[in-house]
């Protein structure tokens, strides 16, 4: 995406914005204002030119460990289900019935509210060919959207950042957690990750130490640049201040320090000022989504947020453990949606869950399940086409693949749907192949 808009392309530029395609969010504020002024319709109506502050947002929610899909979206009327799970199979009134055949796990009361409000899409039977039962490998496949027999260094969101977001503002993607998810890995700056806003800065007590730190690292431009430009884009000043050439390790680290500085001030400011308008569970997921809500409310121009919830690898004593996790999932997501609604941002936000695999149909001897394959995922938002997508894979023993559910829908179709219909970008350059986009919005 070019950083400069020339006179020749202005007309095309206006056309694409009016049609609703999103611009690179790093369009500097002054340019967006100019376009708004130029296009009278935009000026009159409530719809504004799509810039960083109006763009759609995707929140990716990783359920790490391999969530047992069958006890999440329960085929409660299915004989095979109960035969395969005499001890851990779910039944009874507490099940949250979606229809005559499927129900949500009783712990998903949060999702029930979303379902009742028409804000929940359940995508069934998601997986991919030649599934891997290795946590690492399968997670890598979901993160990089690669075929299962290939290894890709970059993540699908990283390729989205490279393709769709020009410029180098590091807040293209924000991951809450200790490590950058592989989904963000990209050729150019990869987005940021942070755990705790208070610590996401150069901590110092002594006077003058932070100033010296900035001077030492040529970071003085970073602070100024961030202030100049309220849309967050600061390509011009960045290019001027920093040596972008050179492949040395020191250069890479310098750029990262710059990214950290630019995003740190912005993020801490937002985290301190924005008040949340919902009650989040005190869990890691709850805290992460709360922070995401603040960042969105504070106007951070990021298009993609990433949060994760761990613990789904329920080999033993699954029922209690999974119930706790799903309760957390439902409650945290519901709080987040509530918060977005109160902010007036709900129409811009979509939450998508994923897990590296589902689990086997039969229970094991320890009251749990082992690694499997296909499973459902959830998409949440008020512009989502609520309800059930895809087909519940058959549980009949002859229809299983080595004891696992066969997938009906490749996860890359879901990604394509999210990329094309929500993030408004072509999915082919990002996924490497053409996948029919699932129409969830």
């Amino acid at each position, binding site marked *: 995406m070019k950083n400069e808009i020339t006179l020749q392309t202005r007309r095309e530029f206006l056309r694409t914005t009016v049609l609703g395609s999103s611009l690179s969010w790093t369009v500097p504020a002054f340019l967006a204002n100019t376009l708004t002024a130029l296009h009278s319709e935009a000026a009159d109506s409530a719809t504004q030119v799509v810039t960083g502050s109006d763009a759609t947002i995707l929140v990716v929610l990783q359920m790490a460990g391999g969530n047992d899909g069958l006890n999440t979206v329960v085929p409660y009327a299915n004989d095979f289900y109960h035969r395969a799970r005499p001890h851990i199979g779910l039944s009874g009134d507490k099940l949250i019935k979606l229809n005559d055949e499927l129900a949500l796990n009783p712990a998903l009361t949060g999702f029930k509210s979303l379902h009742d409000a028409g804000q929940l899409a359940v995508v069934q039977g998601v997986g991919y060919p030649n599934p891997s039962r*290795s946590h*690492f*490998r399968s997670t*890598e496949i979901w993160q990089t959207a690669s075929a299962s027999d290939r290894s890709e260094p970059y993540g699908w969101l990283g390729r989205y950042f490279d393709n769709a977001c020009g410029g180098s503002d*590091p807040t293209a993607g924000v991951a809450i957690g*200790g*490590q*950058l998810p592989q989904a963000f890995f990209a050729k150019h700056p*990869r987005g*940021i*990750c*942070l*755990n*705790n806003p*208070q*610590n*996401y*800065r*150069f*901590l*110092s007590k*002594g006077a*003058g*130490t932070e100033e*010296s*730190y900035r*001077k*030492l*690292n040529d970071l003085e431009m970073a602070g100024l640049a961030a202030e100049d430009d309220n849309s967050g884009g600061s390509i011009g000043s960045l290019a001027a201040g920093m040596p972008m050439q050179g492949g*040395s*390790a*020191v*250069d*890479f*680290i*310098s750029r*990262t*320090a710059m*990214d*950290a500085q630019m*995003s*740190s001030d912005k993020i801490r400011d937002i985290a301190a000022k924005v008040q949340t308008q919902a009650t989040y569970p005190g869990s*890691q997921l709850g805290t992460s989504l709360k922070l995401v809500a603040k960042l969105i409310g504070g106007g951070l121009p990021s298009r993609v947020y990433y949060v994760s919830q*761990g*613990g789904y*690898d329920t080999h033993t004593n699954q029922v209690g453990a999974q119930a706790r996790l799903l309760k957390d999932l439902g409650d945290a997501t519901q709080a987040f949606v509530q918060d977005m609604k109160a902010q007036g941002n709900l129409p811009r936000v979509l939450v998508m869950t994923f897990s590296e695999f589902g689990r086997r149909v039969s229970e094991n001897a320890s009251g749990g399940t082992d690694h499997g394959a296909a499973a459902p995922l959830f998409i949440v938002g008020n512009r989502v086409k609520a309800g059930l997508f895809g087909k519940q894979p058959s549980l009949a023993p002859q229809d299983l693949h080595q004891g696992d559910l066969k997938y009906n829908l490749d996860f890359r179709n879901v990604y394509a749907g999210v990329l094309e219909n929500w993030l408004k970008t072509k999915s082919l350059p990002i996924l490497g192949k053409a996948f029919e986009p699932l129409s969830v919005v």
Partner: protein
Amino acid sequence: MLKPLPVRDWNYAMAAHLLNRAGFGGPPREIEALADRGPESAVNFLVDYESILDPTPNPAWAKPDPDRLKKIREINQQGTPEEKKQLQREENQLQRDRLMELRGWWLQRMAVGPRPFQEKMVLFWHGHFATSAEKVRNAYYLWRQNELFRRLATENWQHLLLEAGKDPAMLVWLDQAQSSRQHPNENFAREVMELFALGEGHYTERDVTEAARALTGWTLDRAREKFIYRPQIHDAGPKTFLGRTGSWSGDDVIEQITAQPQSARFITGKLWNYFAGQPPSEELNTGLAAVFRASGGHFKPLLRAMFRSGEFYQASVLRNQVKSPVQWLVGSVRALECPLPAPLISCGMTRQLGQDLFAPPNVKGWDGGTSWITTNTLLARYNDAESLVQGTLPPMGPGDLGGKTKAAGGGGKKGVRKLQRVRMGGVEVGKILTPEERANQSLLVVSLERRLFQSPLKGDQKRTLLDFLASRTLLNDDDILAAIRLMMSTPQYQVT
């Protein structure tokens, strides 16, 4: 190709480079001592470590414990459900505590041990064989594997690969313990070729299946906590492996793998990448493999040739490798001559920076290089530098104190409480600066430069530091520590 560095090019900076890469760096006097030896003797001093005594004791529990195992078996067979649950809880806690102790024990060896090159090789093998506590929930097994790497660090490749394959931790990690003639498990067979010795594309799927058959019989005697060969579960039939047919055993498979020319290329390429910070060119890799094969697959001649070579001291190699979290921590305490923080904190630091010892993120170990650096981990390095230097507690949450799962040592809330009671050392200014240096700001900066970077700072960086020091009314220890911390908060400090 691989001609030794000329003596005239050998100096303090080159000696520092050698010590940083072949070890974990050190204070100026150690670098000076190494420099004084000259290039050949310096390399031999590091590589021939056997002559240096290492009296470090092992953890008390680092041995088989048949009585405890017997007790566990009895409870599992005859106990009530409550007793079994209680046992499970105790066992989990025991393993978590021992794992923490093990991590601290190893970091301490790296930080103060007299054989830095040996420990650096142990770290290499640890990443290479990438065995994780998340699945091997037995600190004794993990210690045994670590000690195996130490014992055979620079011996013979075939011997090391064989021993590593038969080691209990590996038998559990890659499921060889569950393999049998009736149900051969292919995990180890595949990974030994794909990850450990040949690389993808240098064997076929058929080779994997046949190797798995040959390896049956290799299993774990859980009661005695060691490898055992059980002929009754071994598939003794003919197998066609890497183009040759015979009634191969597991030992045969390992021998044939390491006999492949590709095996020499593969492992020498990995070693060069680890020490030089970048993959070797095709030509260089060929040269390294040739040296390795000529020595019969022994590591010392190869490593000696590597550390003597002009290629190792090329401009593109110098100061261009991102320090791993362990290198960052251990190198810092060595250079600053300060104590390693208590295990809870040291492990928390390296984990926070992305390297959890005994819990690599996947079977490929740690990617290394620039992948160590994200906005989060970079700021964490700068903030941990403050704690290290001042002897204060670093900002950490429960997540940093624990592994991904409780099995990998997750500390949770209890860990945070433990943290409040732990003490740290910090840098002693009097130990690293002479009175003259403390009194004169220019000398101070030059001295710290030499200690921390072994090469001069950029002009304006130096000026910034001098300005910082000049702005202090009384140049006391705190100010000097702050200056050290600033120097550690630069991109230059993150590379070695």
